[in-house]
């Protein structure tokens, strides 16, 4: 009996200890290492579509209420044309950062996924997560895309010379705008918010008279760098041709001076404008334009504005478009106004990689997936359905390039169904009834919009992963404080930050950047 008890105790103890041992943060899973199905079984004689296939497509966001209805129609068309149907799965905004890499590793069977330069394109491409789209495959299986593809877009999509994505066929300008409360502006006699002085006067009036409001509620992970970036852009632009270009990814805190023939890579901290920008942000923070606890803010400034908790919000023009329509309906008494926040700094012509679609490297039917994407992207019927829903239910056409949203569009809203990867200038429809001065704003930006020489620069971090991790950590902690103006001693804190970056191995990182920037300039001569 005693022996049994002892044995039992021993087994139990072993179980406990080892479970403690292995339960500690193992991310490893016993994934199978089955060899990937050999790709390229398609014959050169043209697409064989005799076998019916169901393709699984992953999108990001919440499933629109009418998604199944819309895809029923899309599938009818696809079944007819290419003998395939699509099954859509969604991963929500709150979980996509964790889930996205996992579905590549999980061994799940799926085919198509939304991707973008901000959404793991580069990371998964270098990890062989995507199926390579060769020029030949494009011409064979996606003839419509091959024809309409902007050559720059195709070039931009290259990672180590290979393309893994069908980028959107859509030129997009991005620029910051202020969204303000017209009623409050009138109350405090502010006429416009065209310059920083106007904005400061407005915010100061709110600080002084509206104690229940946080004037500009920034600080969340979404918008913590907005004000800093805006001021940086304005300061940088004031240098004309000598302006600085921040190298992507921006959390590596490196930039180059555009006119420098040697394109010397340096830390943003070592530019002559950093201190001015920092002082400007600090001044705003000290005057109470945002919360003293902005660094732990979880609500972004558009949500706060929408909830009536703040008087001003800074956002991208594309965000402003949809928010404006919502607020006009919800709070007409606010008299919401939109102003250009760029202060003369050029708007950015978005990279085509800002949205796109890719095919999973272990997809069983990559060729058919590419054919389906070709239809989603270029076929007027499929594209309209995916982007705006069912005509007559969710929208009705206004001319060839416009549309009016119908009440049911709440169940499948205009351009908000993760359809961005198939946006296409040729078939695009703009929505009626947006921001009144939108055309004026866009015209104004078009005069000096720039695509930015380094916009498509893609940093290969494979040799310096440890340094990237260490610098990311600094970007997410100390640098975040500076971006929001939390410093009592700007110059001292900048020096401290430099020392920390030094310890994190920023020199090695910058050397890697330098070599790649020079190679990039070699292959992408400035226009």
């Amino acid at each position, binding site marked *: 009996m005693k*022996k*049994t008890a002892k044995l*039992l*105790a021993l087994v*139990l*103890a072993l*179980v*406990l*200890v*080892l*479970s*403690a*041992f*292995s*339960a*500690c*943060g*193992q*991310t*490893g*899973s*016993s994934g*199978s*290492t089955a060899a990937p199905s050999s790709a390229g079984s398609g014959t050169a004689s043209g697409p064989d579509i005799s076998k019916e296939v169901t393709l699984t497509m992953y999108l990001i966001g919440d499933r629109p209420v009418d998604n199944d209805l819309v895809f029923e129609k899309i599938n009818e068309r696809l079944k007819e044309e290419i003998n395939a149907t699509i099954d859509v799965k969604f991963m929500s905004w709150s979980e996509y950062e964790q889930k996205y*890499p996992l579905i590549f590793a999980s061994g799940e069977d799926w085919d198509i996924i939304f991707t973008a330069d901000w959404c*793991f394109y580069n*990371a998964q491409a270098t*990890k*062989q*997560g995507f199926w390579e789209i060769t020029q030949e495959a494009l011409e064979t299986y996606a003839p419509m895309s091959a024809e309409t593809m902007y050559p720059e877009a195709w070039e931009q999509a290259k990672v180590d010379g290979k393309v893994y994505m069908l980028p959107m066929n859509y030129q997009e300008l991005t620029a910051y705008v202020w969204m303000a409360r017209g009623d409050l502006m009138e109350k405090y006699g502010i006429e416009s918010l065209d310059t920083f002085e106007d904005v400061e006067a407005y915010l100061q009036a709110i600080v002084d008279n509206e104690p229940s409001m*946080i004037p500009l509620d920034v600080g969340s992970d979404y918008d913590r760098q907005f004000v800093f970036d805006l001021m940086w852009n304005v300061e940088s632009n004031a240098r004309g041709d000598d302006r600085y270009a921040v190298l992507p*990814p921006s*959390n590596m805190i490196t930039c180059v001076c555009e006119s420098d023939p040697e394109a010397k890579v340096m830390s943003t901290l070592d530019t002559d404008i950093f201190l001015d920008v920092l002082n400007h942000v600090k001044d705003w923070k000290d005057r109470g334009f945002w*919360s*003293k*606890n902005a*660094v*732990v803010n*979880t609500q972004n400034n558009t949500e706060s504005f929408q909830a009536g908790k703040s008087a001003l919000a800074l956002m991208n023009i594309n965000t402003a478009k949809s928010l404006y329509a919502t607020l006009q309906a919800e709070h007409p008494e606010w008299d919401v106004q939109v102003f250009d926040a760029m202060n003369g700094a050029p708007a950015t012509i978005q990279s085509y990689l800002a949205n796109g679609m890719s095919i999973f*490297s*272990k997809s069983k039917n990559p060729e058919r997936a590419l054919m389906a994407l070709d239809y989603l992207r270029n076929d007027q019927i499929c594209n309209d359905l995916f982007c705006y829903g069912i005509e007559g239910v969710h929208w009705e056409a206004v001319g060839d390039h416009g549309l009016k949203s119908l009440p049911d569009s709440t169940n499948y809203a205009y351009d908000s169904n993760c359809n961005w990867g198939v946006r296409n200038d040729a078939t695009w429809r703009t929505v009626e009834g947006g921001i009144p001065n939108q055309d004026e704003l866009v015209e104004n930006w078009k005069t000096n919009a720039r695509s930015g020489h380094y916009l498509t620069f893609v940093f290969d*971090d*494979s040799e310096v*992963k*440890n340094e*990237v*991790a*260490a610098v*990311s*950590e*600094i970007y*997410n*902690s*100390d640098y*975040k*404080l500076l971006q929001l103006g*939390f410093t009592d001693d700007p110059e001292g804190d900048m020096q401290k930050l430099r020392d*920390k970056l030094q*310890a994190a*191995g920023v020199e090695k990182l910058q050397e890697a950047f330098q070599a790649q920037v020079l190679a990039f300039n070699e292959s992408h001569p400035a226009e």
Partner: protein
Amino acid sequence: MKRQNALLRDLRENRVKWLMLLPAAIVVILMCYIPMGGIVLAFKEYNYHDGIFGSPWVAFENFEYFFQSGKAWSVTRNTILYNLAFLLVNTFLQITCAILLSELAGKWFKRITQSVMFFPYFISWVVVGAFIYNMFNYEFGAVNTFLESLGLNPVDVYSNKAVWPFILIGVSAFKNVGYGTVMYLASIMNIDGQLYEAADLDGANMWQKIRYITLPGIRPTIVILFLLAIGTIMKGDFQMFWQVTGNNPMVLEVTDVIDTYVTRSLLQLQEFGMTSAAGLYQSVFSFLLVLLANKLVKKVEPDYALF
């Protein structure tokens, strides 16, 4: 030969007990032993194509980032100190509450108190984080609104390093005391009632009964729970540190633990190998700590050691 026979006989004689152990053993084997093969990830540069076992080896490269910036020591220290503090404070409060509850007479009051204390265990850290934010945020937090209504100056908790250890220890107790109390209470209930009756006859007062009967009676439970807790001492409760502090860079010096540090570093990088490396570092240290703690226990109280 003889040993094997003994084992077989034991299996036969105690098959019910072995059967009862089976589900737990299966879970542990499936969830803990088999995935353990994934440890190799820590030494590999993972890519999807080659999978876990096919990806190229990189020796200790995945560990470098952790030590490079010189923060390894400070986050390791924070992790251990916080967990020790949680362990001591929570154990003390749990035992105290368990004894108080066991001494209470009113059955209903006892039950309700127990349930109310247990309740916070089920609240997610995200919600607790929101509580904390709404209490302490500078402009509209409950604390500052209260202070201002008394005509006092508001306090800025989120930039004050000194208070965070106390807040964290406080919320940890808030969430976990109820849970532990129930375990200790169960253990107290197991003490033979005759001992108390005998003590009553001898004229022992309440304190003496606690000191000489209850505490020695629950000692094995205390030691086992302590040893188990040692196993997780290198692992900061990520949700707690991330949500409650709001990943606040102003107080990182005193609130950063291994798990939050690793998350901040690798959020954008998505490098499985590097995450595994951090996990392995924690696990190996935990393992050593458990061995050490068990050895100490064995020296003092050989009967209570785990193995």
